[in-house]
């Protein structure tokens, strides 16, 4: 009886110790590349890329299973930075395909429930209890979190229209080989 207790105790102690040592010395380091990528991503955890947040997306990009162009709020600038870090060439054709959609609140339908602005990762919605909410288009990144939260479906995702300040000439049409 006593010998069984002692032997099991010693066994447990040794194996536990070994496990502890293994955890300390054989630890798998987090991919440092992932951290670098996370620092480049917006960090809004908006999930537009299809991953639960910026961390998992960065992991997927570091392991090569996701393209660097998946971050929609980041757009071209972020894609280029990511490509530079990963040392891959980036095909920009896919980035501009979907224009950025900005939330717009239809004021007739808004009931002032504050659900949307609580979820906005960039504080782009202003409002208060029983007051009509409004969107700062400059700050909106088009993550659609508010769109999903609105109980009255008063939020519409609209493409951002150009203004005189942001409009510029399109690229001249392709020429004959030159």
């Amino acid at each position, binding site marked *: 009886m006593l010998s069984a207790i002692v032997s099991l105790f010693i066994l447990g102690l040794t194996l536990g110790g070994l496990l502890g040592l293994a955890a300390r010395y054989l630890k798998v380091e987090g991919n440092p590349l992932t951290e670098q990528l996370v620092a480049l991503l917006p960090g809004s955890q908006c999930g537009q890329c299809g991953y639960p947040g910026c961390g998992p997306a960065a992991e997927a990009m570091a392991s090569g299973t996701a393209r660097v162009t998946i971050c929609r709020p980041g757009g071209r600038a972020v894609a280029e930075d990511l490509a530079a870090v990963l040392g891959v060439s980036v095909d920009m054709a896919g980035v501009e395909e979907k224009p950025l959609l900005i939330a717009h609140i239809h004021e007739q339908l808004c009931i002032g429930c504050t659900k949307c602005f609580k979820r906005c990762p960039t504080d782009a919605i202003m409002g208060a209890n029983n007051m009509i909410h409004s969107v700062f288009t*400059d700050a909106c990144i088009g993550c659609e979190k508010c769109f999903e939260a609105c109980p009255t479906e008063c939020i519409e995702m609209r493409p951002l229209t150009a203004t005189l300040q942001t409009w510029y000439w399109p*690229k*001249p049409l392709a020429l004959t080989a030159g």
Partner: protein
Amino acid sequence: MQLFNIRGGVHPDDCKQLAAHQPIETLPLPALLHIPLQQHIGAPASPAVRRGQRVAKGDLIANGQGAISAPVHAPTSGRIVGVGSYPAHHASGLSVPTVTLQPDGEDRWADSIKGVADPFALEPDDIAARVGAAGIVGLGGATFPAAVKLNLRKKYQLHTLVINGAECEPYLTCDDRLMREQADAVIDGIRIMAYALGVTRIIIAIENNKPEAQAAMTVAASQHSNIQIAHLPTRYPMGSEKHLVQALTGQETPARGLTADIGVVVHNPATAFAVHEALRFGYPLVARVVTVSGGAIQQPRNVRVLLGTRVQDLLNYCGGFTVQPTQLLSGGPMMGQPLPSTRVPMVKGSNGVLALTATEVNTQPSMPCIRCGSCIQACPCGLVPLDLAAHTRAGELEGAVKLGLLDCIGCGSCAYVCPSHLPLVQFFNYAKGEMAARGRAKQKQTETKRLIEQRTARIEAIQQAKREAMAARKREADAKKKAAAASASS
């Protein structure tokens, strides 16, 4: 006076004979005026009138917003019939906030309009403030608020005021006519601006294809020894601010800097005239002289129009089209922008409306680049347009920037001389716009990061405060319990 050589440039047929002999006429009052609130570089003005309100000529209808902006005034007396959006005087065809005014036909100035007897008795700051309040912007086409430029003396050591009467764009004759007909008023405005800037040396630069303007300005300036008239050789783009200063002083403006960096401020004669009117009579900027010309115009003219007049009204006054124009341009043929329709209103920066026929427009298809180097010789900025265009076409904008894309002034000399009719300057305009858009995207990115960090910190702080409050309540409850137990036991 001694002139210095500038690099490159082209000699297009100036076609000024079409309108140069036409004296400035005043356009009759149109039925409606559409006055855009964004007629300048900078933040749009915010409307100060409501629908149905009656205004007198010169009444403020929109306030300037922010440091770089300009107010807008009622061009005539009448009733505001709308504050909404209307197609802009811009190639994009986009709409901008616009005030629509129905003239009452009286053209009655507001009672508050009052001039200054002696502008030279005012403080320079006061003059700049009056110029700013009059809504005066650079009338050469850049539409930079003139008051901001008059205040440059606070930041820079200025010594010379250059008046840019080069008018190097073909067809345009509005500055030419203004200098001929209003020489004394222009000189007065120039002297007021020089006083406000605190400079003593004034150079009025006029190209040699305008001998009458040179003569008129020489006569008007004869009493003022500090004013020099420079006779510039006729070459495009002599009127580019930086090249003009180089031709006059021999000094080159630093890349992406201002001419103020080398002590020179450049203004347009039409701006000087507007300053004269604003200071002597108190008139805000509500009208400008514009050249209507081109092969498709029945009767080319120089017309003084109220801001907000539709291009169509202006064209009607000039007899309409002889043939359907191939291109309708705002500004000159070299740097002008196509107008999306004739509905758009005239704005502070529009110095010309050109209706060009097929023979005046290059409609030939582009051919491959033969690397002849004509564009390199024509480029006034010393760039290599063919290389820039190749980089831009390949989507390699960073490479184009390294080659000096941002030093391109968009004068179009390269595209003008290109024997293959390549849209060179069009490539650069696109590339500059794209680079600016990327800059904005980057800025939004950093802003987004900042917003997210602030939000995270705030939420953290709220939770921390909640935890602390809970802990404090718990401590209080415990203390009460203890006290109760102690009192019970005693």
